[in-house]
């Protein structure tokens, strides 16, 4: 009976979707809502669950601070640079894995993922040892006699943060591009070749357009979390490499001021959502995906 099979299908949907929905509800949506609620709380005096009058006072306090806005813009710009460079660097890797690596593709993919066997924190720390004044680069340059004094411009600045973040994100941005390239029907290339298209033309007319959904997925996957990044600037950014996430972190971990921290988080969340919304409007997704 058609009705019975419909029911089965719906049942399967709920069995598959319910556990992750419950998980996300408890561990993602609830904290997010709590944060929104906290941003309206006047202060943290008294018990956490006592009644209080909602206020926009926290937003009022931070909206007028121009340096916060400046830093938010700067963080978005850094995220943009990181996302674009990471994609430019990972596209050839994905292309190679999809079309050129042949039987060894699996092996190379594992090589690409090996850095993930250690923690994120350790990989960022490793960059400190690379760039530091007694680090790998400086030691090598001193050993070869190129420099007498260690280069101090390598670490503790915004560039160090961007370089480290690009490194961290390359494997991430490779995967969605690889997935998109793998979906391309190879018959298209044969047909194009039959019709006289050269390799470059094939790339421009087939590979590039069909990889765009993966490229965009990679872009947002890198851009969105990078806007709120705080660990990397903390470790390699020094006094002048701070990002917006560090300001939020300070309000939570140094001031125990959850209300202002939450308000700043909500502002960042809204700003990122607006940016993504505008981007999706500017780029016609439907035509890309069809």
């Amino acid at each position, binding site marked *: 009976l058609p009705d019975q099979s419909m029911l089965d299908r719906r049942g399967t949907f709920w069995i598959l979707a319910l556990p992750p929905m419950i998980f996300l509800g408890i561990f993602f949506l609830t904290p997010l809502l709590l944060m929104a609620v906290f941003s309206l709380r006047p*202060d*943290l*005096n*008294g018990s*956490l669950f006592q009644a209080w009058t909602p206020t926009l006072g926290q937003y009022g*306090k931070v909206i007028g*601070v121009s*340096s*916060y806005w*400046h*830093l938010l813009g700067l963080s978005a710009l850094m995220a943009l640079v990181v996302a674009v460079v990471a994609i430019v660097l990972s596209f050839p890797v994905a292309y190679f*894995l*999809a079309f050129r690596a*042949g*039987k060894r*593709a*699996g092996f190379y*993919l*594992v090589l*690409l*993922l090996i850095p*993930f*066997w250690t*923690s*994120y*924190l350790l990989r960022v720390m490793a960059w400190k040892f690379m760039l*530091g*004044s*007694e680090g790998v680069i400086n030691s090598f340059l001193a050993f070869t006699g190129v420099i007498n004094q260690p280069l*101090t411009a390598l670490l*503790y600045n915004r560039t160090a943060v961007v370089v480290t973040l690009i490194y961290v994100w390359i*494997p*991430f941005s490779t*995967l969605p591009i*690889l*997935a998109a390239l*793998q979906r391309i029907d*190879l018959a298209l290339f044969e047909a194009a070749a039959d019709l006289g298209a050269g390799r470059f033309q094939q790339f421009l007319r087939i590979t590039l357009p069909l990889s765009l959904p993966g490229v965009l997925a990679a872009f947002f996957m890198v851009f969105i979390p990078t806007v709120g990044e705080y*660990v990397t600037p*903390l470790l390699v*950014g*020094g*006094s*002048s490499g*701070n990002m*917006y996430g*560090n*300001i939020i972190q*300070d*309000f*939570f*971990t*140094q*001031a*125990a*001021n*959850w209300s*202002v921290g939450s308000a700043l988080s909500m502002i960042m969340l809204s700003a990122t959502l607006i940016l993504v919304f505008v981007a999706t409007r500017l780029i016609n997704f439907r035509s890309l995906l069809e």
Partner: protein
Amino acid sequence: MLLRGENKMIQRKISKLSAIGILVILSILLISCGGQSTPTPAATAPGSAPSGATAVPPTTAATEIPPAQLTGSLNVLDWAGYDQSDFWIDFKNTYPKVNVSFEIGASDADIYSKMKAGDQADIFHPYTGWLQFYVDNGLVQEIDTSKLTNWNKVSDSLKKLGQVNGKQYFIPWDWGYSSILYRTDKIPGGVTSWNALMDPKFKGHISMWDDGPGAVTVSAYIHGYNETNISADQLTAIKQEWIAQRSLNLFYWSGEPELIQGMQSGDVWVAYAWQGTYAQLLSKGVPVAYITPTEGRNSWVGMYGIRKGSPNTDLALKFLDQKLGVATGNNVVNEFFYGDSNQDVMNGITDATLKKAFSINDPTILQHTNFTPNLTAAQRDAWTAMWTEVKAAP
């Protein structure tokens, strides 16, 4: 050229592998995220129990049971490192059957946030500056010092620092200085004032502590402001001062190992520092000096409090009494180079490096020391906001 079928097979293989890859990444991300949010203690204390073991009936009849037979459990919210049994060795030896479990706080704000959110720790460890909040929010109970056998070994000036609103809510335990530390080989002329942190001569080689109230304290010393009563104009001036300082500063340190590494490598020449850093650099043979600035040093004291409503108050008092023991205090002095509130411990120090670090031979040191006053919530919020604006400044 590969055959179509072969190609498809490879593609399918790759797809499978990417799926595995993504799974691997996600699981590793989850693990590493977990690792970031819960700082791992330097070593797990032997004899520590899982935190679930706290639901034990109150030990009211404890006085009749010999210490070696006394059972029960205590949950302590402390800083990483202090969970090692060296730092509660007297209690461990006297009450071997009591389970002590530790929870780690990353900063004063973190410990306060945890207690505020309903943490069930029996004992917690804040520092001077943060005490008032616990009293105002009803998170700490008054301590019956008549039950502490080691209480008479604590100096009156330290006892007083543990009092809020005239009542003894906290037991002073570890203490230390904040002052200017510098590399004597890089700055042969030496420095004499807190304003060494603002000196353009040391551009790119200065490291300030990552802390708003700490920055206000330094500026207050330099300009002679009253630290407990900073006006809005003064705070604006302080903000401008630290924004200008930022281009001279290499990095803001948040933990001692970070600063120690920076000074050892020669990147940092002059820094705001606690004497733990000084003593550790001395023991590594790094040429450093720890000054008594013309404006005076800063001093901070670590306190233990007992959570209001703790079902293990009697046991907690025993724990705090043993915390003041000599063996425990000696370990604080020798392993972390911090002072101990038990005067017998401090009087027993013979090591020349330690004597230097604590300025034990300088009878006038306390006259040159400014103790950290208690912060109000308004000051804490305003000063941290000032500090974030320094960091965010273009």
